[in-house]
């Protein structure tokens, strides 16, 4: 990353945060609402696990740990890729035209300009909370190797979710109306990813592995660190596949997006 890009990032971050502070009560309530929503889904998991003790050999702490990976990557994802969710609005209000008028990379501008720090904060808090609750009691030996693996997991998980949204947002170049399909697919898949993939039937499993690859955001990385017995159903190398899927998936989504740009009608 070159110096001038860091300067640009700083400038955008400054205006982004300042804008948020213009409406601090609004921002605070929004963060609170997101926090409460996420916390309630965690309680849902908690009460479910009270009944079953384990789900396919996963106990509550282990599921919390897996959930912490999901929320951590998700909070990084909304920080950098949220703009792709709101892309139809960007087109409608002419904000995207403005980006095309500026002598910086289109993606760079979108990611830096769209960074949503406040929304990222509440998911970040949830993930840190879940991590603290679980990380030391699920039998992970935190050494250089596992910490490195964890960091790679963070990056690939963020990029995989980004790739999904970039891919779907490319359709907005063809259809100006937002049909909400991408939200539906994304949120449903993310909901499913709260639990180990192995508990689902074949169709859902395949979707989560090969179509909307949430399994590689949190399940397989958690498997590497936790080694639960249900991993036997999958090839060993799946635990190392997340970065590959992130790179390949994002490249494909990016190429498709750039290709679709020429059909932009403004």
């Amino acid at each position: 990353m070159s110096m001038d890009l860091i300067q640009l990032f700083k400038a955008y971050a400054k205006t982004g945060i300042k804008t948020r502070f213009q409406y601090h009560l609004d921002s605070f309530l929004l963060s609170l609402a997101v926090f409460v929503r996420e916390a309630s889904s965690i309680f849902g998991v908690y009460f479910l696990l009270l009944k079953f003790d384990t789900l396919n050999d996963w106990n509550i702490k282990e599921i919390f740990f897996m959930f912490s990976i999901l929320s951590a990557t998700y909070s990084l994802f909304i920080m950098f890729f949220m703009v792709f969710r709101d892309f139809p609005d960007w087109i409608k209000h002419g904000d995207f035209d403005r980006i095309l008028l500026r002598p910086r990379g289109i993606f760079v501008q979108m990611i830096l300009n769209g960074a949503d720090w406040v929304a990222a904060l509440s998911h970040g808090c949830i993930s840190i909370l879940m991590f603290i609750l679980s990380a030391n009691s699920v039998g992970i030996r935190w050494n250089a190797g596992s910490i490195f693996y964890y960091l790679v997991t963070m990056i690939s998980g963020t990029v995989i979710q980004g790739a999904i949204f970039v891919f779907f947002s490319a359709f907005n170049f063809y259809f100006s109306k937002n049909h909400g399909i991408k939200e539906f697919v994304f949120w449903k898949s993310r909901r499913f990813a709260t639990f180990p993939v192995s508990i689902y039937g074949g169709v859902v499993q395949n979707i989560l592995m090969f179509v909307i690859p949430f399994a590689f955001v949190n399940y397989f990385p958690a498997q590497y660190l936790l080694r639960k017995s249900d991993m036997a159903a999958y090839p060993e190398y799946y635990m190392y596949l997340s970065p590959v899927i992130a790179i390949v998936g994002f490249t494909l989504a990016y190429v498709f997006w750039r290709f679709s740009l020429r059909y932009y009608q403004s």
Partner: protein
Amino acid sequence: MIEVNNLRKEFKKTIKDPGLKGSIKSLFHPKTETIAAVKDISFEIADGEILGFIGPNGAGKSTVIKMLTGILTPTSGTCTINGKNPTHNRKNYVREIGVVFGQRTQLWWDLPLRETYGVLKEIYEVPDDKFKERMEFLNEVLELEDFITSPVRTLSLGQRMRADIAASLLHSPKVLFLDEPTIGLDVVVKHNIRNAIEYINKKEKTTVILTTHDLADIEMLANRIVMIDKGSNVFDGTISELKSKYGQIRELNFDTSDAKAREKLAYVKQFKTKKEDIIVEQEGNMVKVRFDSSIVPVSEMLSYTLGKIKVNDISVKDADIEEIIARLYKHEVG
């Protein structure tokens, strides 16, 4: 130097039959229709020129502007600024241009105006000393000082427009696109903005491409006009050329207290057979007769009318540009 060669832009539109059945059908067998919003447009603009780019609503003006600014990719044809092409190298191209869309702002809405210039400085990589110098110049021309610390959302429309023009000039572009820069502004503010544009054009030799519905903007600023309609060039030339080509329109104002005389004037319409070019309007004691002096010379019209009626006063007026263009839009001439 801006060169626009055979620019064309087609849009595909999907046609949907009504009802649910139609929706399902169009999902599997989409029927599309190709519409050429811009058919074939060519022109050149020399450095330092102010070009008025006009045309009726739906003529394809904004599509052309969007291609010239690199927002839309042309279906065919090219536009280059100093040899740079927006389709091949967008980043290099847009460094050369500044764009103001009068109906939208590029300013950070919730923040003090100064913050916008701070971000733009980073986006365009303007060095500190250059930035300071530039802000001083823009401040002098557009008088930003009074509101530079106010949040953009609190600015008046005129202040916002000045701020927007300054924002698009921060990186010293060679070409400035102004799309409706005076829309919704009062007369005094309009005047100030025009003066500022003229000053910048003179001082920095900035090429200006001006799209507007306010022909006073054009008359005061533009050296040249390009008019398009239905996606093609209709006229390209100076204002005096436009006037000499289409503007042989003269208006005779008769002031007469004699009601019979006013009635008689209505029959002027039948003078020579080209009656569609003679328009007669009555307003109180005044009767306006508008006609094309290349068909009926003014002297002939005067001797014809004055031979029949008595008048208190009479005046002859040149048609203004507004009149000519209104006629062109309605395809009355040309």
